[in-house]
């Protein structure tokens, strides 16, 4: 708590035997001030003080003050917040009364940032221009552009509004609307898909027994499939041209891991369901599920089991599935030891996506040897042994693909993982493109 200050009578109020037990020092919050609100409406921060007034000893008061501080941060209006705790003075001050002041420093009118971002098996350059807190209640607009090493690019204009200040504060409801133009290159299948459209997103937490994060989206976009070279199998060429997609997407996440990247315990479950065909001329349903279980073993060793499954199906309205919604299996994110998309169906020598796929992985994570010596640096690295099993267009264990190997992983910015593995594919199909040897992977959701 570096920014909190304790002054005045706090120490003298303590009795002798409980000098250092702040929980026994009674306290009462007389007044809470939030200063620095220039553009923000007062009612937006009203709920900040809710917990503070309930504190009846000094320890609670301190803890509540810190949680209020982080709440104020989450409101998305302040660059930084400092907390000042003082005894209350004046005519109506109570004997154990305190006065707490949060000094906030609001975001400037316009913020810009540029940097790198890690996507699934790609790195990208990103620039962003944000106008925060336009209307005084956390509403913001941002313009984002990114360009990745796979030549995919993305432009997005997004407006979002959090509802953290309402009585649903615990549920963290947030609404966003974005207009986007996004190009995805499927180099392995020689086509690219340019999507232009808008997305409405509503997300919230629920904590009925288990903590879940929900997100409900509606997307309306024009998806234009174009070819990347001349000699493309006809079954891919058939998909060319623009189509209008109108879909709802619901995703739910359960995550109780102790870390995003090198978790030592906990479970992650994630499921995304899409229904496309509310108008427009693309129709399909798509479901994917991803799971990860971490079990701590001994002296820093962790066993990890991952699995993922995806199904895309026709609806009654159509028989032709959009080629861009199919699943690619293989690559450092899914089946190590195979090239990206190399473990799937092939048409005239060109891999295309599969309608269904599943893959699983078992890992044994180990800290680096001599990790104790360079503790801070070594905590960013892990060694792992892995075994991957997967298949496409079939849920049986016949004709499946397997690979194993070992490698070194690096934690990047607490969110992404960079891996360098030596992979040995064991079982493969004749048409598969394998990679026997070193494979490099970068991303945030691995199997």
């Amino acid at each position, binding site marked *: 708590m570096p920014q909190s200050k304790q002054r005045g009578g706090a120490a003298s109020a303590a009795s002798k035997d409980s000098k250092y037990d702040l929980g026994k020092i009674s306290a009462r919050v007389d007044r809470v001030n939030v200063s620095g609100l220039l553009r923000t409406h007062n009612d937006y921060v009203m709920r900040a003080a809710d917990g503070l007034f309930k504190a009846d000893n000094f320890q609670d008061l301190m803890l509540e003050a810190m949680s209020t501080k982080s709440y104020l941060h989450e409101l998305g209006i302040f660059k930084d917040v400092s907390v000042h705790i003082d005894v209350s003075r004046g005519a109506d001050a109570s004997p154990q009364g305190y006065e707490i002041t949060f000094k906030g420093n609001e975001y400037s009118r316009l913020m810009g940032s540029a940097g790198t971002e890690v996507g699934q098996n790609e790195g990208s350059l990103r620039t962003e221009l944000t106008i925060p807190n336009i209307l005084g209640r956390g509403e913001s607009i941002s313009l984002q552009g990114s360009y990745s090493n796979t030549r995919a690019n993305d432009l997005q204009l997004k407006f979002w509004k959090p509802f953290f200040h309402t009585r649903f504060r615990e549920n963290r409801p947030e609404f966003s609307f974005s207009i986007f133009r996004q190009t995805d290159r499927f180099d392995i299948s020689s086509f690219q898909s340019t999507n232009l459209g808008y997305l409405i997103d509503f997300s919230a937490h629920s904590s009925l027994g288990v903590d879940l994060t929900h997100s409900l989206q509606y997307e309306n976009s024009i998806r234009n499939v174009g070819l990347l070279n*001349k000699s493309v199998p*006809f079954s891919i*060429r058939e998909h060319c*041209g623009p189509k209008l997609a109108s879909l709802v997407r619901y995703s739910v996440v359960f995550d109780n891991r102790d870390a995003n990247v090198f978790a030592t315990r906990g479970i992650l479950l994630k499921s995304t369901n899409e229904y496309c065909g509310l108008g427009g001329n693309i129709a399909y349903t798509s479901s994917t599920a991803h799971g990860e279980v971490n079990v701590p073993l001994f002296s820093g060793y962790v066993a990890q089991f991952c699995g993922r499954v995806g199904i895309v199906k026709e609806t009654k309205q159509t028989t032709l599935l959009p080629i861009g919604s199919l699943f690619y299996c293989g690559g450092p994110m899914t089946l190590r030891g195979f090239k990206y998309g190399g473990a799937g169906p092939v048409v005239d020598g060109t891999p295309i996506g599969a309608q269904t796929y599943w893959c699983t992985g078992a890992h044994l994570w180990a800290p680096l040897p001599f990790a104790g010596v360079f503790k801070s640096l070594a905590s960013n690295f892990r060694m792992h042994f892995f075994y991957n099993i997967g298949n496409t267009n079939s849920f049986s264990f016949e004709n499946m693909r397997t690979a194993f190997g070992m490698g070194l992983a690096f934690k990047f910015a607490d969110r992404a993982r960079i891996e360098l593995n030596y992979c040995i594919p064991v079982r493969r199909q004749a048409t598969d493109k394998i990679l026997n040897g070193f494979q490099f992977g970068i991303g945030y959701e691995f199997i």
Partner: protein
Amino acid sequence: MQQSVLLSQLATSHKLSEEPWPEDATLYQPYEVEQILLPENASCLAVKAYLKMCNLPFDIRTCSNAEHMSPGGRMTKLPFIRAGAFIFAEFEPIVNFVEQKDMAIGNLQDEDEKADMRTYVSLVENIFTMAELYISFKNERVYKEVTAPRNGSVYPWPMNHMQNYGKRRNALRLLKVYQWDDLNIDNVIEKVAKCCETLEYKLKESPDTPFFYGDQPCELDAIAFGHLFSILTTTLPNMALAQTVQKFKHLVDFCRFIDEKYFQTRCLP
């Protein structure tokens, strides 16, 4: 790089001449009743006429995204033909492809005559395609009442408007490239009339045969038929082109004859 392109072309043409005409050759075009536009219809009809004249079997498949599936071309990008592993779009590449297989018509002529014929083909293709594009996209009434609704018919709202906008922009750009954008309708009719006059003159050179060159059909017959017949049989709010062509009785008779011989649609009055 340049060399490798030439080499690959050579390899392709070598491969082409070895294989026979594939059984499953398929011609792709937009929907004829509700979608296809005048310039596209003309070039599709020209290719169909040519293949029929060569007596080559082919299937016709209509699909709404034919233009987007096409590997690209100089003008309408349509039709395109899929023969085995090869895909060719528009009249000239398809004709070249057939010629490489030694199944083409008009082989009897000498080189001079052939060059002469090619000139006519290119004249007909340029003038008529441009005139058709002009009437379809630059004439406000034709665009609003025919071109836009037809082109947008295969897309759901609001995509139809965006697609129409893009299509019109491309058409106007093409007209600008060929310097047809600042002409008025009278200039266009004048150009078409002149082209028809040239064609009729050429047709009259061999009065005892129904074709342009001798008693065998050739590329010129196919492309002239494709454009003239399409113009004559397409009903537009502005019939200036059809009225111009109708003034040339020999050309109308020629169209009637080719239609009777190869298509039997009998929609010419």
